């Protein structure tokens, strides 16, 4: 199978190049990550992040034939050759397929991604009805792979000011949690021309999310709450 892979090592390359690879696959090789592991056996200088190889850790996000996705759950049989692989767009490249995710995590951290509840905790669990718990479905499953934020034009233009779809999905995850008491502060924290309102519902995030989550809908819910509290 044929691949064209973005290569750049700041230690020796002046500028990035696309390198061609031809690799013989084993019948057990089902996913793109399997092929990349094989390529790395031929050329150990190819650098990428990978860990769980089942789509739950979020390490191996990359741009695959122009679309962001996880290599470990992208079927080889679905890919047109030569398969063109690039690092996630919009973030600085450290090397080859590895990007610097500091800006992405900074935005995630900026939404205070933890439960706030100042009541003294009960001896046992806090109670939550099944319906209240269901409100978290489609939110808590995010794996922080950054496929969504790095597919978002608003994030490309303002990665330092716009929280981005991943961070906003998590902001809503805590707003939606019946146990959380910080909704007002969370909304204040997003009341800003950039942090939330740079989202123009382009919906690239929904398109690429490997976990089939819907950040645009979560962002819409936050906007609704903002409107509600201003009337």
């Amino acid at each position, binding site marked *: 199978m044929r691949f064209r892979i973005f290569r750049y*090592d*700041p*230690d*020796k390359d002046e500028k990035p190049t696309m390198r061609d690879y031809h690799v013989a696959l084993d019948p*057990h090789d*089902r996913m793109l990550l399997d092929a990349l592991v094989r390529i*790395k*056996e031929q*050329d*150990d*200088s190819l*650098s*990428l*992040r*990978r*860990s*769980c*190889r*089942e*789509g*739950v*850790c*979020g*390490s191996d996000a990359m741009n695959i034939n122009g679309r962001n996705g996880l290599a470990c*759950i992208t*079927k080889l049989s679905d890919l047109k050759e030569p398969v063109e692989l690039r690092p996630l767009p919009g973030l600085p490249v*450290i*090397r*080859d397929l*590895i990007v610097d*995710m500091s800006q992405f*995590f900074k935005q995630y*951290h900026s939404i*205070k*991604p*933890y*439960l706030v*509840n100042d009541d003294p*905790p009960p*001896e*046992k*669990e*806090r*109670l*939550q*009805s*099944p319906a*209240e*718990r269901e409100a*978290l479905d489609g939110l*808590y*499953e995010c*794996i*922080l792979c950054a496929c969504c934020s790095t597919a978002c034009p608003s994030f490309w233009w303002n990665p330092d000011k716009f929280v981005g779809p991943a961070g906003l999905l998590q902001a809503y995850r*805590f707003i939606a*949690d019946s*146990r*959380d008491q910080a909704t007002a502060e969370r909304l204040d924290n997003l009341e800003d021309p950039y942090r939330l309102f740079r989202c123009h519902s382009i919906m690239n995030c929904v398109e690429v999310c490997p976990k089939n989550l819907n950040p645009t809908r979560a962002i819409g819910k936050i906007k609704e709450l903002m409107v509600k509290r201003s009337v």
Partner: protein
Amino acid sequence: MRSFDAVVVGAGGAGLRAALQLSEAGVKVAVLSKVFPTRSHTVAAQGGIGAALGNMGEDSWLWHMYDTVKGSDWLGDQDTIEFMCREAPKAVYELEHFGMPFDRNENGTVYQRPFGGHSQNFGERPVQRSCCAADRTGHAMLHTLYQRNVRARTQFFVEWMALDLIRDASGQVLGVTALEIETGEVMILHARATLFATGGAGRMFHSSTNAFINTGDGLGMAARAGIPLQDMEFYQFHPTGVYGAGILITEAVRGEGGYLLNKNGERFMERYAPNLKDLASRDVVSRAMVTEIKEGRGAGPQGDHLMLKLDHLGPEVIDKRLPGIREISKKFANVDPVKDSIPVVPTAHYMMGGIPTNYHSEVIAPRGADKEATVPGLYAAGECACASVHGGNRLGTNSLTELLVFGKSAADSAIRFLKENPGQKELPKDAADRSLARLARLDSQKNGESVAEVANDMRRAMQAHCGVFRFPDLLAEGVKKIRAIADRATRTEIGDKSRVFNTARIEALELENTIEAARATMVGAAARQESRGAHDRADFHKRDDVNWLKHTLWYKEADRLDYRPVHMKPLTARTIEPKVRTY
């Protein structure tokens, strides 16, 4: 060089729980992780956390303790098991208070599901003890713990790989050397207390449910520093890995009512475990499956796997309780479990052995006649540690319980140690020498073999010689093979010499760790002449409590073996005396 009160190596469940405890106590702590914390392998845990909350019916930590001791085939230490089972409910409540999105019952309490080997009233009938978030419990838990650490402003060193332990002449641990992956810089992290939470070594096997990062780094570091590894021959093969891909299918599928079928459509577990059937212990189910395959009742054109049926649960239950399994089955087995059964096969999953610890999570390294001597300044928790709560076989859900309980206890012990031992001891002059020599060797190696070649040979050898059933001739040959491969691992050569994010270098360093775990496993298995828990010998069919009710200790130096007694005395409960183990 940088100095801290405490260094935590690893940011999975155990490392993050420990880090949180340390940060909240105001300890100056550095947490090193070779991946961003939420990429750690805890994220892949599916089924749940074992704790006798009693939300679904009567339950007691004494029953949980009994099940765990029996599951361990009496190799588990009864004091650590009591400690874990007693602390488990508190650990779950804490996690809930941190924001963990547990599934709920109508009355608002945490939902619990049945799991293998967990029972009511000392083995009478299955109990619902596994606290879960759908089939994504590990993911929900790891993210919750990371989030709580963000709140506590824990200092992380992300994408830093620890290389070696630093010990002074007295044996006290004074921190680690580490490599910053992005820049290739080596640094000494000088610490008064060092906590290992480095996870398992599942990548020693060819077919494994484990992430690429599970390379036994803490085990390699410990072994090189003269610390023994305990009970490594006890390696768990999970009954249900996706056939051909190795991806885990949680035991929760059977907990929720799924069951295994052979090619004749027979529910064969009824023959092997008439009481708990498909919810018997994992070692029992895996052996039954391999026996079915060997006796010609395996499914598929090669007759080399079995079928896991759950379509009868209906789409509502599957989508609510097992959504991740449906996703995995579609992607990795081309099967929608709402309609069809999933092809599965026992797959290397969990290391019961590890760095020996006591119930304070202090690392044990016997000195002379003192078999309980601890290493000052060193703690271990989670899969890298052998507490030993799992003994010969781990019960499903107890790994998450273990990392919460012992992650916290490791931190508490470290905090106590810091209070009692103020002041930083001086680093030995040769603190970084071993690590620098390893890196220099790798940089200058000529005519060596590729890392992938050596690593693949190691994985094939472990798979072929040290599997579900073990044979004396295969083990003896396996020891020879793995020693030869260990030798080759010291001469690997990498083509990539870049300083920047050199993953070839990381993989070479990881192999030097995994091979130590593999060697300990094979050598320990060849020596243990009995069948107990996950260790099943064709030439010694029975458990032998007279000669082998003891922990194996393996030392890297000359592959030396030693043994230490199992702790049969619980902290407060009565000893659970060994008896015949049936399910």
